[in-house]
């Protein structure tokens, strides 16, 4: 079944914008909850203010950055093994 193409970059951009807003909204709620909820940590550092948020944010950046470096070393053309 094929339907006429109705999607456009602006659709995707709008979707991306809504997604970002939703994420920011949840992030703000989580920030607020941090003042009311006591999180149990395996070590005391984990209980410090917004620790999992910071850990997740930095871990993500680190993974992507290392991935970029890794590309320089281990990325080959598609027909490398052919």
């Amino acid at each position, binding site marked *: 079944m094929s339907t006429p193409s109705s*999607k456009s970059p602006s659709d995707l951009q709008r979707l991306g914008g809504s997604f970002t807003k939703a994420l920011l909204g949840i992030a703000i709620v989580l920030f607020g909850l941090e003042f009311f909820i006591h999180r149990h940590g395996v070590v005391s550092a984990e209980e410090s203010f917004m620790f999992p948020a910071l850990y997740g944010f930095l871990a993500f950046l680190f993974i*992507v950055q290392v991935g970029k470096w890794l590309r320089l070393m281990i990325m*080959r053309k598609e027909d490398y093994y052919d």
Partner: protein
Amino acid sequence: MISHMPPGLIMILAAFLLPVIPHVWRQIYMLGAIALSAYGLFLGAGTHLVWTVLGLDLILYQADTLSLPFAIIFHLAAALNVIYSWHDRDWQQHCASLSYAGAAIAALHAGDLVSLFVWWEATAVTSVFLILASGTERARQAAMRYLLFQVTSGVLLLAGAAILASTSGDIRFTKMDLGDAATWLIFIAFGIKAAFPFLNGWLQDAYPEATPTGTVALSAFTTKLAIYALARGFPGTDILIWIGAAMTALPVFFAVIENDLRRVLAFSLNNQLGFMVVAVGIGTELALNGAVAHAFVHIIYKALLFMSMGAVLHQVGTIKASELGGLYKKMPFTMVCCIIGAMSISAFPLFSGFVAKSLTMSALGDAGIIWAYFVLLFASAGVLEHSGIKIPYFAFFAHDNKIETGEAPIGMRVAMGIAAFLCIGIGVFPSLLYSILPYAVDYHPYDAGHVTSQMQLLIFAMLAFVVLVRLKLYPPEIPSVVLNSDWFYRRLAPMVGLPLLRMIMLVWSGLLHQTRGLVNAIWDRLDRIMHSPLAGPTVSGRAVLVQAGLLTLLLLIAYAAAG
């Protein structure tokens, strides 16, 4: 009678009739065979079938609280696969996947190492046809490499079992302590199928080359059978914590830059196995529950992710991130299912991954293995990156590639729907899962602190993704191949091995040449003697000369014996 047959065996026997059953009836027949096999599980815990062969007790059907959850989920995965491949008229693939699932289920119930070996190898020789079914030269080569690794694993297992049989005479499959050659051989055999670091190349190499339906079947059984085997044979083995931690962290980086989305999922599968291996390594009751729970939910959400990517491949004809994008309007149901799978594997609260992974993380905390705890926490952000974001983002959103297509066949959608339902169902009602774990569970994943911790980790990691995309710093999709540990035998070994082989062949042919020259020289000399002897008659041929020589030798021996 049927209830005393090892579960799974009936599925293997049923597979023989598949070629003669017409399409659709074949699918119903397969579901019936799976149901009949599952019926055997009602026999409960205990040893139900033992054969004594050559003085060895082969325990063909043994069940306990460890085998049961694996058996349940293996049957469920087999049934899901039948539904997912409902449209497929290729009986060979159905034959392969039904007997493959049957072999894996039979292996779960093997109570001794020799029976385990038989089913261990059976999973290899049945599953390879799912890769071969792609019909390309590329798939054929990957299938041969896959088979080489799988069979090697079986041979190592058999070697270990043989040493144990000859030294202690005890081949029962129970907890072992790593130490002697036998246990190391068995450990490495399990390690190959569990895709330990540097033994993992076959997984990312072969799984993405299988057919869309074949990869779904492959993702469920082999590696989780290995996790089961490790949980039975080597619980509490410290080295597994190191190995598992490496497995969780390393594939994360490869998955970021891989372009083939099914290969991204294969890296992700490797990362998930790491969590289970760590849990087995801790070895406490909570940790082993964590390993089993993780394997259980993982089979569902990983199958769901592979199913959604298989659906995309089936509809679009490619699964390369660089050629996909913008499918969210064309395949909305598949997109929603994919996102549910992605949220489950990322361990969002109310999804199945959360209630399973929490057990392992808590066990790590309780055991005080802090370094591993933080490695796994880091790997959790990695899971979110490649399976939580990258898979749905590049397939369904990213940029509009103007792909004209529609939703996947109804069977595919039904299977995805069931898997998605289970992902949420288990996440919302974890007690259903906890009730079938090997040990009694007194664990409550949904406390406010735990939920907010996890949400912080995930939401802020997602924000990092948004920041990178908006700043155009997220690595773009590039048509490429990412080198993995299979490079060692696909490139390095030929690079070193071929010149070495050429040198050996050169020396060998030189030696042959020299020898041939020497032989010729001897014959030439003899020919001259034959035709112009110093004394006596000439000899008419070489054969006569040889006979004369032998007779002379015989005469001398007779003289010596008489003397």
